[in-house]
């Protein structure tokens, strides 16, 4: 199979398969969560607190002062990585064009050199995150195969994208094919690893905020 054939497969059937696995998998995960339901709370809430779950969805992004002090590296690296990833994913022109082709939605792109810089920063942040996972006693203790798999499938699309853009090491067509394939690997792995947190964290934060607010505490 030539690089061009690989690219065509990645852009055609490959993408369709990956998208199908991703959509099926994530839908299933959400059904698995919500179908468990929860018991109605019969305790009278301290005050009626509509919107408290939604507020926590936002407020939980801002750590308490003591948390900042104790988990500085995790917080900073986490913020840099997540923001960088979203900038690259959503504001690189070819990505927007792909999204427009698939959904009809589009928005202005950021200048490519800026996205390129964001890619480098994001890659560095991911390396810092990996090193911290390997060296920090708590993170190393908690980590298993799934954690390193999730890291790898997140790192690869960024790395191959960067290499393709800069024509590094390999043929451009092949790099582009590998870039798309790595993104597809991410999509396939996504619903079955901790990457699900991208969506489920909103559910988790909502429940946390709702439970705490019934007792009169903003969480």
């Amino acid at each position, binding site marked *: 199979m030539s690089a061009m054939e690989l690219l065509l497969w990645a852009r055609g059937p490959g993408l369709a398969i990956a998208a199908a696995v991703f959509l099926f998998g994530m839908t299933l995960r959400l059904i698995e969560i919500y179908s468990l339901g929860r018991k109605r709370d019969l305790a009278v809430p301290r005050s009626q607190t509509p919107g408290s779950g939604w507020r926590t969805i936002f407020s939980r992004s801002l750590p308490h002062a003591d948390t900042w002090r104790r988990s500085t590296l995790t917080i900073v690296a986490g913020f840099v990585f997540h923001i960088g990833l979203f900038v690259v994913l959503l504001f690189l022109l070819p990505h927007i064009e792909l999204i427009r082709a698939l959904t009809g939605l589009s928005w202005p792109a950021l200048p490519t050199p800026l996205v390129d810089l964001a890619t480098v920063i994001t890659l560095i942040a991911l390396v810092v995150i990996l090193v911290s996972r390997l060296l920090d006693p708590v993170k190393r203790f908690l980590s298993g195969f799934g954690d390193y798999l999730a890291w790898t499938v997140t790192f690869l699309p960024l790395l191959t994208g960067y290499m393709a853009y800069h024509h590094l090491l390999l043929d451009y067509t092949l790099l582009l094919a590998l870039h798309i394939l790595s993104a597809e690997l991410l999509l396939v792995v996504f619903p079955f690893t901790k990457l699900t947190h991208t969506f489920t964290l909103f559910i988790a934060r909502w*429940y946390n905020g709702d439970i705490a607010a019934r007792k009169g505490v903003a969480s």
Partner: protein
Amino acid sequence: MSATLEKGLNAFREVMDAPIASFFSSCVHCGMCADACLFYTETGDPKYTPIHKLEPLRRVWQQEYTLPGRLGRLLGLSRPVSDDELKDWSELVYDSCTLCGRCSMVCPVGNDITYMVRKMREGMSAAGHAPEGVIGATKRTIELGSPMGVKLPALQAQIRGQEAETGLTIPIDVQGADYMALLSSMEIINFPEYLGALARIFQQAGVSWTLSSEAFEATNSGIQIGASDIAREIVARIVTAAEKLQVKNVISPECGHAFTALRWEGPNLIGRPYKFQVVHILELLDELRRSGRLKTSGKEDAALTFHDPCQIVRRGGVVAQPRALLGEVARDFREMPDHGVMNWCCGGGGGVSANERAEHLRLTSFKRKKAQLDALGVETMVTACANCRIVLEEGLEHYNMNVKVVGLTELVAEHLMEQEGGK
């Protein structure tokens, strides 16, 4: 009650709900909950990372409530949760967690880890892996009426003592009173002044109140051990007594878990809302203060601080009231670093203080409270939980610290404006 692994796993399945599934789905192993937990910060041992304490519960969720897990089980690829595993986890679930809820405030994906530990204890106790000390306390509550084995005659003796001390009558079994007060065993045995303080405050404020001879014990070790059937029985005693006396309100005493048990878990345990309201004593005192019925005079000159009991403040929502009350009676009130809803636990909540096996770990983690106090340099610490108070006193003694612990209700009572009828 014969405990088996199967019963334990069934209890895990029983408690599994959408919040728990969303929490496990969201954990990214960032480790930030460890930094929020005094059992980790004071020992540096990663096994005390809060989310790790839930590993057996997570494995049951993964294996039975997710498609990959179910496939794995079908193909024999997964290792089911064993009795030995639960036994190993007993220390993590009971000794190194006070259900203080600090990790639940910190988790960046919003996991209410404490909610899950509380639920996991249901399975641990059903599987027979709750610690002896907490089982003993629970047995005494069921058989004798209180975790410390305090019976009515002991209370009556303390009532007589406090009546002599205050010159007031302490009402018991008064039909139709506005408030029914509860006590914790700790208070009956160690801090009977609380009862006298109530009598004096209510006398001044003109509050109609009573104790019940049938239900005076507020603590509920059923929720600490994780046995909902027992917790239900303990709550039901109070509900029955309160509804029989037709009181409008029940006052939860200066005890953290009593408040959680009665205020938040109770209606869910008995399966219906109460016919009365539950108020914490600090809520009531602050209400009396605001309406002008509680008048104080004079203020403490010495610098003092407030230790926020987790179940009353972070998990109970009584945050502003103790500060408002302290403002009335203290000239130099200083907040600890990380006060309020981010305060650090005394280290003995959630049944830990009743668990002899956990004593060394509890005293080690007290270094956190010590550091908070050292940073402040005050010699008086006010609190509003009899269990915190005992645990704090033990910790202070262990580290030879010269800090006095005072109950807030008593402190308020000491500053009551002189009135006829009072002492």
